[in-house]
């Protein structure tokens, strides 16, 4: 079911096309949160929203998200070095390719900040992958292959061991992350009458402590 989505008026070929991409490896503990959120979204999004699971290989991500209008990437985030961000925290990072400062890699990310003029970082410290979403964002920025709007829904993980299950805190965050995606898609979907406000850079979960991304 589509949860009360407006019907009609949208086609998959529309230039504003929306895609939701779950990134991660289900065999590596909390790295599986992206695919888990995609599974939780099955049947809950309009039929014209593409829904897929990917690994974090940058060129495949770029192929999947360009030239879509709005792309939501759901991925696990590495634990913060100081342990100050509880696992299961859901955070939104938004990148707008039309940002006047962009499309410099990561320049519009409401997350780990870089000083002006610093070289693009291969990682934005939001992904659990060695060469992942951060690299893809940075490379796509340089190559002009970012979607018009890219929203990264990151869930802070605790364990990424091979063969490990998702931790309880991350598993409990899956519904919130899925609802976050639905809300963002609802705001970006063309059948919604009013232009939505920008997605909040901070998405504190009901069950987790508020977390400032920056």
């Amino acid at each position: 079911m589509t949860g009360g989505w407006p019907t009609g008026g949208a086609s998959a070929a529309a230039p504003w096309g929306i895609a939701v991409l779950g990134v991660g490896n289900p065999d590596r503990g909390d790295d599986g949160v992206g695919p888990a959120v995609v599974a939780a979204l099955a049947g809950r999004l309009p039929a014209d929203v593409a829904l897929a699971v990917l690994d974090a290989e940058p060129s495949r991500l770029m192929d999947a998200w360009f030239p879509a209008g709005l792309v939501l990437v759901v991925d696990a985030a590495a634990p913060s070095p100081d342990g100050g961000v509880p696992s299961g925290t859901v955070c939104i990072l938004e990148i707008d390719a039309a940002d006047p400062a962009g499309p410099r890699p990561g320049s519009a990310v409401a997350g780990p900040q870089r000083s002006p003029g610093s070289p693009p970082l291969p990682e934005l410290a939001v992904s659990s992958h060695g060469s992942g979403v951060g690299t893809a964002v940075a490379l796509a920025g340089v190559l002009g292959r970012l979607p018009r709007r890219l929203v990264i829904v990151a869930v802070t993980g605790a364990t990424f061991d091979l063969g490990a299950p998702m931790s309880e805190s991350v598993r409990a965050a899956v519904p919130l992350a899925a609802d976050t995606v639905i809300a963002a898609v609802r705001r970006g979907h063309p059948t919604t009458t009013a232009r939505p406000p920008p997605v909040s850079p901070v998405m504190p979960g009901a069950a987790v402590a508020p977390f400032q991304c920056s």
Partner: protein
Amino acid sequence: MTHVVSGARTLSVEVLSRVEGEGGMRVIVDGDVVRDVELRIFEPPRFFEAMLRGRSYTEPPDITARICGICPVAYQISSVQAIEDACGVAVPDDIRALRRLLFCGEWIESHGLHIYLLHAPDFLGYPSAIHLASQDREIVQRGLDMKKVGNDLVDVVGGRAIHPINVRIGGFHRVPRLSELAGMVAPLRRAADQAEETARWVNGFSFPEVERDYEFVALSDPDGRYPIDTGRVVSSTGVDVPVQEFPEHFVEYHVARSTALHSRLAGVASDSDGHYHVGPLARWALNRDRLSPRCLALADELGVPAVVRNPFRSVLVRAIETLYACEEALRILESYAEPAEPAVPVPARAGAGHGVSEAPRGLLYHRYRIDGEGTITDAVITPPTAQNLPTIEDDLRAVIQANLTLDDEALTLLSEHAIRNYDPCISCSTHFLRLTMDRR
């Protein structure tokens, strides 16, 4: 980061980037002598071999495809061949051709990824492909376009580009329609041209000078083609055996510092001997004359010798192999007829079977034992990177010894570069690569 402590120098790169997966390496330099080089693997051993025990003999292609996101096809093809060997089944030529076609897609995407996003920045002095792209967008876009053709080929034959789902023992779940494959012809022709341009581009790189006396090990294709999907196991010192004899000639051994097994030739006095080299340079040295005329003409034009012993030049061989994979895919497509059946029956029978293929980064061996009910009782997977680990250490020893006059930062970068020559898939052997260098 670099520390200076009581006259001793320690170089440390906390995370080695641009390799698939994660791992660690420690280098000890005592005065003017490289005393030791150790690959240290921190993560627990791979669970896949254990995971396979007790599972059905039909499951390895889907389970092992998840070992690596870059070379899942190699895992699938080695595994199905091993199971079919155990069950005494040989698949028809048309199924074999389709497997080889799928494999070509993997070579194109894996080599494209490594050349452009992982290895070229080393040669050109950029910290990453992002920096390279910011300076030369068209070059990187060319690489990504070429790679995408490989992705698309894996997608159309394998069912999806990541962890393909269409491979099964005995063949495929579904064979692609001619109409689906026809759309790949023009992109593959473009990709072949791009691969040729790539070879010319990388041939202009400046290669650090090092020559190594490798024992090369690769496959030899039964049909006389360049080895990709199957073959006998051959070496530069005369090994020439069927895959069933692989365990008699190549042994795995454990080293305390690593949770990945290392490999060496059997019959040598100690683990410090018998190291060997798998991958593009081995395939090239042992099968060069089986490449296409276009590849050989390009190699001649670029002055690529019959045996390449400089590991840094592996990037050039990868580019030529990419051209071959495009041409080979086109050759298979031109004569493609949909197989009458997508798969042949493979009834379970008790026994052991062996399978081998050439992953983009080298020979990949699988062995399974199954019981009469088709339950897997034992599984052994020997990935190419695990086989190359001792040789990577040997390379580092040679490269560092020859460049001790470099400062710490330059020497550390060069060491990372030397590791990346192997396109190491640490994900396949294990995880987490870090580089630490101690100078005393």
